[in-house]
């Protein structure tokens, strides 16, 4: 092991290589509930060449290697289950190009969503990207490789649908460009080439390490506002979503429900965000949305909520810190969630299962959903705060998480960014030929099985 350490210090400046207990401890876990496992080394490269050399070393020595971004999936996707080398990519955080005319950006893999937001606001104020609800320390690439969603997901799909190119270090050490950037200096599109990006999206770093990425940027409107439509009956939610998405007037549509404070009990809120370059544009969109939902207001089944400026500001915030604050509602420092991607019409069933599970385990919950595309699907989050200092509470929450994964698959959904046990549930249910194809692809790309082992693995 000492020789590996020495080899790593020849690749990366010694001050960015550690095999000390404290770094191994911190990189053994994420804020979720998965069992920790320590790596043997943590290394922070600065360049693609350094990543390449680290991967070559790991492949030669057959040591596991785990690429890490913000480490905020909460599902333990970067826990080094078999030890090895954790590659923290966050020193690679430069913006390399912004093309205002073709509206794309190229950046390094360790760039955080917070820094990208600040960068665009400062240098390209008319452009934006789809900011997720994760804390600003989440990396953009990390969010994309787990098929994350963000503020523009209702308009343009998963954040991974916005990728225009990549640079990837393959498990065998080759550096590969994906998309138009492989044949042109411009990273504007994956099409019309064969879509090789799919070999790296949703694979949780088991097929290679993304070192650079091209991403679509979108027009940034001057004004934003929000309306919140409230209903008590979960069966109405799909219809509300249908009606609002039909108008094509909203920026983002999310759902939210929680039992506390009591004023929110039994209410499902549907947040509808609006943007415009003028008050007239904003008011026009608002009117279209109000008109679309007038039938539910007339039937007294739903209505728009009044909001104080503070609440409104909270809901408009990007990234939204209220998501993070959920971890402290029980003063326990943790929350875990399963956020399956489900057909929109399955919202009522998912909601019912959520209430059943929380009742069974005596735990509280927060539900947050986000519409993906024009009602093409939605993420439905079963969120459970837990107390990190209370093992019994953790155990109950773990059991609830297990039941939630089962329920998600039962209703026809697929758990999003699934932790290893949920990955196994998915693979058990998966079409056998599909599963075999996945394993075959993995074997071809990573013959020595060094990349983030434990994930997407059939035992």
């Amino acid at each position, binding site marked *: 092991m000492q020789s590996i350490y020495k080899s790593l210090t020849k690749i990366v400046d010694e*001050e*960015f290589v*550690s095999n*000390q*207990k*404290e*770094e191994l*401890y*911190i*990189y053994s876990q994420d*804020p979720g509930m998965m069992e920790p496992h320590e790596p043997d080394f*943590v290394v*922070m490269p600065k360049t693609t060449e350094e990543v390449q050399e680290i991967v070559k070393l790991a492949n030669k020595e057959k040591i596991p290697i785990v690429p890490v971004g*913000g*480490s*905020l999936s909460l599902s333990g996707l970067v826990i080094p289950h078999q030890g090895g080398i954790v590659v*923290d990519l*966050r*020193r690679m955080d430069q913006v390399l190009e912004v093309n205002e005319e073709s509206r794309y950006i190229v950046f390094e893999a360790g760039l*955080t969503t*917070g*820094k990208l*937001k*600040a*960068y665009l*606001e*400062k240098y390209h104020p008319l452009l934006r990207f789809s900011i997720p609800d994760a*804390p*600003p*320390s*989440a990396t953009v690439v990390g969010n994309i490789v787990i098929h994350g969603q963000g503020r523009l997901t209702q308009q343009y799909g998963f954040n991974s649908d916005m990728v225009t190119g990549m640079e990837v270090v393959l498990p065998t050490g080759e550096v590969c460009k994906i998309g138009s950037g492989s044949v042109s200096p411009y990273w504007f599109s994956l099409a019309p080439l064969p879509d090789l990006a799919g070999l790296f999206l949703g694979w949780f770093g088991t097929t290679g390490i993304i070192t650079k990425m091209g991403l679509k940027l979108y027009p940034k409107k001057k004004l934003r506002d929000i309306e919140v439509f409230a209903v008590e009956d979960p069966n109405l939610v799909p219809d509300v979503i249908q009606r609002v998405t039909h108008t094509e007037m909203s920026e983002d549509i999310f759902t939210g429900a929680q039992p506390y404070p009591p004023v929110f009990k039994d209410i499902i809120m549907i947040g509808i965000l609006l943007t415009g370059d003028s008050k007239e544009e904003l008011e026009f969109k608002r009117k279209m949305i109000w008109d679309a939902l007038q039938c539910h207001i007339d039937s007294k089944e739903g209505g728009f909520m009044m909001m104080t400026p503070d609440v409104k500001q909270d809901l408009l915030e990007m990234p939204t*810190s209220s998501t*993070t*604050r959920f*971890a*402290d509602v029980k*003063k*326990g*420092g*943790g*929350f875990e969630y399963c956020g399956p991607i489900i057909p929109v019409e399955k919202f009522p069933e998912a909601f019912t299962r959520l209430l059943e599970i929380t009742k069974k385990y005596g735990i509280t919950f927060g539900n947050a959903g986000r519409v993906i595309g024009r009602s093409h699907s939605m993420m439905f989050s079963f969120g459970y705060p837990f*107390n*990190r*200092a209370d093992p019994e509470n953790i155990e109950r929450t773990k059991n609830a998480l297990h039941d939630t994964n089962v329920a998600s698959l039962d209703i026809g959904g697929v758990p999003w960014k699934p932790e290893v046990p949920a990955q196994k549930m998915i693979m058990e249910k998966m079409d056998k030929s599909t599963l075999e194809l996945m394993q075959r692809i993995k074997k071809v790309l990573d013959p020595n099985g060094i990349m983030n082992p434990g994930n997407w693995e059939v035992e």
Partner: protein
Amino acid sequence: MMYDYADQIHRCFKCGYCKFSNNYTDFNCPSYNRFRFESYSTGGRLWLIWAWSKGEIEWSEHLANIVFSCAACRNCVEQCPMRFNEDIVDWIIGARSDMVEKGLIPASVGEFLDNIHKYGNPWGMPRNERDIWAEGINRYTIDDDNEYLFYVGCVGSYEKQGQQMAKSVADFLRTTGVSFGILGSDEDCDGNEVLFTGEKGLFRELADKNIEKFKELNVKKIITLSPHAYNSMKNKYGGLGEIKVYHYTQVFSEIINSNNIELSDLNIKVTYHDPCFLGRYNSIYEPPREIIKGIPGVELIEMERTRENSFCCGGGSGNFVFDLLGRSSNSPSRIRVREAYETGAELLIVSCPSCYCMLEEAIKTEGLEEKLMIKDISELVIESIKNK
């Protein structure tokens, strides 16, 4: 219980907000900037402290370095979205206290505390050299009718930059007719850094000693040179009764405004570095700026990270002496002087002797001596008065 807050520290989610400035332009945590491992972020540090308190990890020199490398700049308090944000620094001090009690601290921190205990200053300098800079400046006595006690502090007494500051503050007070005196070799450490390194017993001893001295001398008002001393006396001592404490910039601002002090044109572009113990700890952002803007010909160009969002020089919590954040181009002081230089300013202005030492050294290390000067506000004011 091993230390205060042991039943609360698990509440940190390690979300990482604490690393940033408020608009996310950059990482704003000094130790995370310096080392970049997650272990050196506030969240990482809190998780390690919790792990140590539970016995999941054992104490090590490396763990102690991580815990003591926090400059206690309060950026994390400012940025953390949780309701416990105000407690974060106290949790870290709690862990340090526990390490101090067990004698499990980095050697350099031990030497720092030992020197203060024995000699009243962190370098182990002779007490009788405390006023070596103060030729011609009166001692504060009970018999004289002085308006202010000018509390100079350790950096002001022994470090070259601090002495320059102390001289110009004294010069200004004399020039503007303010009566004051110093304690000279009778002065003791203010104890702010002692408290922040977790030596609560020694801090109480120093605080009580200083309070007793002030009361014996019938002190009514204190001017501190250092924001660190200002913070400890104003917020941590307790027991000062009617004695009022001011940072010198507050007094300067008041005197300049009320006395119509005539200042000459200096024709210079400057930028200003907010010290943590003046800014984030005490919300004193305007008086220094009012003084700077009041000097004719001085153009103040703010750095990207300023006021509540300021980036610490890395000297807080005793690091201006034991410097666990030094020896790297990523050292906070070096990052900060690069940021100051990028504004296009010719002069970096400070109002804290610790920041002065840290940043002047960084300017030299960065090779910016010919491009970026550094001065304290008092020096700038005196220059302006003397040019008249």
